[in-house]
């Protein structure tokens, strides 16, 4: 499943870049974070709860920055599992400076779900994955545009 979008973020590009590439900041936009464990600047582990309605899973995600071209481009691989299920999300973010205070972020995410959730929830997954992905990026915009970092 591929999702993409373009965000106009009212924040300077450097600030957007540091937010996106800082595990402690960017994970504040992940759904329902249970724990975060940063092993090195390029790798971290985050446990999140995500789902739709009563279908909710705890996903233990290993996240890795695959590409970092400061301050223009980042690619992130997040791979994790819930019981009997696995999820993988490869996200690409391209930042361009609209002006000093505005950044345009083009993002895309390729989400693969395998196992139980895929089998039992296939008919619901497209919608759920879309929603979770949209929320993630919408949250990034909101946080960056807040006058004080939330």
């Amino acid at each position: 499943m591929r999702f993409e979008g373009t965000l106009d973020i009212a924040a300077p590009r450097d600030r957007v870049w540091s937010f996106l590439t800082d595990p402690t900041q960017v994970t504040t936009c992940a759904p329902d974070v249970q724990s975060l464990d940063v092993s090195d600047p390029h790798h971290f582990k985050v446990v999140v709860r995500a789902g739709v309605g009563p279908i909710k899973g705890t996903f233990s995600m290993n996240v890795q920055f695959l590409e970092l071209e400061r301050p223009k481009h980042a690619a992130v691989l997040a791979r994790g599992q819930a019981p009997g299920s696995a999820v993988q999300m490869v996200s690409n973010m391209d930042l361009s400076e609209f002006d000093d205070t505005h950044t345009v972020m083009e993002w895309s995410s390729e989400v693969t779900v395998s196992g139980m959730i895929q089998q039992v929830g296939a008919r619901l997954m497209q919608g759920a994955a879309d929603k979770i992905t949209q929320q993630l990026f919408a949250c990034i915009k909101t946080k960056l545009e807040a006058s004080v970092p939330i």
Partner: protein
Amino acid sequence: MAVETAPATTTGTRRMKVHVTVNGQAHEVEVETRTLLVHFLRENLGMTGTHIGCDTTNCGACTVLLNGRPVKSCTVFAVQADGMSVATVEGLEKDGKLDPVQEGFHEEHGLQCGFCTPGMMITAAALLAANPDPSELQIRQAISGNLCRCTGYVNIVKSIQYAARKTRETAGGKAPDGG
């Protein structure tokens, strides 16, 4: 991931004593609240006549009467049955006399491997209690929540028709009452 053992809340309980009357006999057993009724019957009470054939509420092998209605006991928690009556295949035979449904399944070759049979018979008994003279279509509709892989259903339909005839012929043929 971690086992999702939800945090204990102050308002609920993880274990509970349930009182259930099964085939007329009262039982009181403390169980985990997540115990499924079918496991309660099979594991806690040792009544293994009720079978498990799937995990998605499709096959009906676990059908029992809960307060007189046929339900899939894999999709009911034992705690929900607290204070209720349950009837299982073990209770169909009364005082050494087979229920007409049991007789019908034997006479009309309504079973082969026998695994779906208890659930199928319970559903049939409930149907006949509600409708002593069902049409073939009504029988097929009534058992459409019970899967059989051996018989092709034709003889199951005949078995239930046999039981219906038999019940009508036998004055005072007693319907299963769930307890």
